[in-house]
């Protein structure tokens, strides 16, 4: 009888214990009230997004990712490698999170093997540029489709430019665009019978360069200037239409590790040649530790009046498998995400 009572007491305490644990767990996992909430009201063809938020608690930020058809938008693919059949299009989704208190416009373009290509986006036709408008705190995904590509190994990177139509020539605005207002996501693609990531040999840039010396201020990055190897940033300029405009793209490895990089110049977000006398619109560099150089570049100024945006992309580790944990220690130390230069405002006047 005593044993029975003892068992009852033990069971009772056990149950109480489990209830306590569940209660604590409930406290631990009970969701906090959201800091913001978005509602979507559709009337006819119009959809109105409205957002409520606590402005003292939210923070402004912005995120993107690419995920395949088969994955949910709340999952992050475990691989950056995609395999498609010969003559197949690449169909994926771009997820964008505009965690900001105001709506924003984003210009989207893609580079296939470091060349800007037209692609379908959000049921729009093949185009080089696509635009989306995001409501405050909106998170959305968009289907995109890249036309069939040759058999073998490819890199595809999608870029989002925030507020592409902001053209202030104010220096502080220009400085604020340094390594900012742009995000990107790259995937590696195998087409046809290719079974492993085996990129084509990269043709290193062989045009004229100037050494800046190891004491130059730049490290693992780029800076656009008027004079080569200068540290005075080029923010804006008044330029003559249909004339050549010269500038310098200064690039540098870190003093402690080498870098490999692709440099892509853009004018009004369209890829353009590095210089008038060449058709090269991308340049690949392998810089040894401490190597710092200047590349003389120029563009042909458009005739249209207004401010034109000159921008150069720094794309680290081109044609490197993004899934490969065996990347060399040196490459691994390189800053891993693509960065934009300062957006240079080139003002074409009526006179």
């Amino acid at each position, binding site marked *: 009888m005593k044993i029975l009572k003892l068992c009852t007491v033990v069971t009772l305490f056990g149950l109480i214990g489990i209830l306590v644990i569940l209660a604590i767990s409930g406290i631990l996992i009970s969701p906090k009230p959201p800091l*913001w909430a978005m509602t*979507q009201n559709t009337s006819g063809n119009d959809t109105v997004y409205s957002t409520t938020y606590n402005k003292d608690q939210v*923070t402004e*930020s912005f995120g993107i990712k690419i995920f395949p058809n088969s994955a949910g938008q709340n999952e*992050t693919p475990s691989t950056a490698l995609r395999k498609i059949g010969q003559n197949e299009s690449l169909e994926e989704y771009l997820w964008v999170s505009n965690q900001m208190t105001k709506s924003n416009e984003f210009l989207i373009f893609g580079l296939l093997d470091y060349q800007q290509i037209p692609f379908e986006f959000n049921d729009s036709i093949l185009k080089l540029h696509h635009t989306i408008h995001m409501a405050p705190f909106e998170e959305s995904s968009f289907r995109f489709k890249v036309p069939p590509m040759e058999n073998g190994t490819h890199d595809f990177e999608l870029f989002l430019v925030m507020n592409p139509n902001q053209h202030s020539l104010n220096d502080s605005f220009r400085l604020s665009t340094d390594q900012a207002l742009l995000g990107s*996501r790259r995937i590696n693609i195998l087409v046809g019978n290719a079974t492993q990531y085996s990129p084509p040999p990269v043709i290193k840039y062989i045009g004229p360069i100037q050494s800046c010396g190891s004491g130059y201020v*730049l490290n693992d990055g780029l800076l656009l200037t008027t004079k080569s190897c200068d*540290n005075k940033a080029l923010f804006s300029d008044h330029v003559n239409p249909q004339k050549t405009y010269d500038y310098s793209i200064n690039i540098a490895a870190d003093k402690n590790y080498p870098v490999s990089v692709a440099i892509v110049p853009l004018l009004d977000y369209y890829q353009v040649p590095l210089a008038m006398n060449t058709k090269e619109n991308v340049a690949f560099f392998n810089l040894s530790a401490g190597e710092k150089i200047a590349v003389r570049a120029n563009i042909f100024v458009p005739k249209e009046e207004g401010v034109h945006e000159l921008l150069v992309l720094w794309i680290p580790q081109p044609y490197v498998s993004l899934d490969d944990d065996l990347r060399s220690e040196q490459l691994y130390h390189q800053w891993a995400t693509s960065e934009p230069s300062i957006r240079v405002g080139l003002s074409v006047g009526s006179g």
Partner: protein
Amino acid sequence: MERHAARIMLAALALTPMVSAVSPESSDSGVITQHLSPAEGAKWTGADPEKDIGVGGMLKMKTAVKKSNLSTLAITEAPHWSAYTDLWRNWWSASPVYCDAYSRSRTGSGSAYDINKIALRERVWRDGSLYNDQTQTKYNSADAQVNYQYSNWYTGGTWTAQSDHTFELSGYTSWYPVTTDSLT
């Protein structure tokens, strides 16, 4: 039209590079941004909060978020991440100018919490000219820092600094905040 408004706030964002809008941090909430008082800033930089000029700086803090809601039951404590930048100068002289930037990963009790990758990139500008461009990337570490000091007979002008921070830990959403500061 393929457009789906997401309804889940803490979406899995690992390996999601973030655009530097004002910052490239992860898009979930829970980030606290503060412009520190001189007394608080001095704890990071060692400056004299009573006398030195421009002490304070920008601090962003966040508790790392698990990728999956299911793992909320896990016993492992999430790390607390801090990103900080401060530009300041000594009160007794216009020279030197300092810029101190930190990425830190800590436990709730303040001990070092090693993560897979912690990194920092700092650029310091003076009147539109680049004066410092420096990165520090560490693996299986709790700290990355860049401490810049510029000394000359004249150090006036408008100084601005921007730091890109990286925090990556397996099983947690990565975080890429940006901190800035200025000094005139």
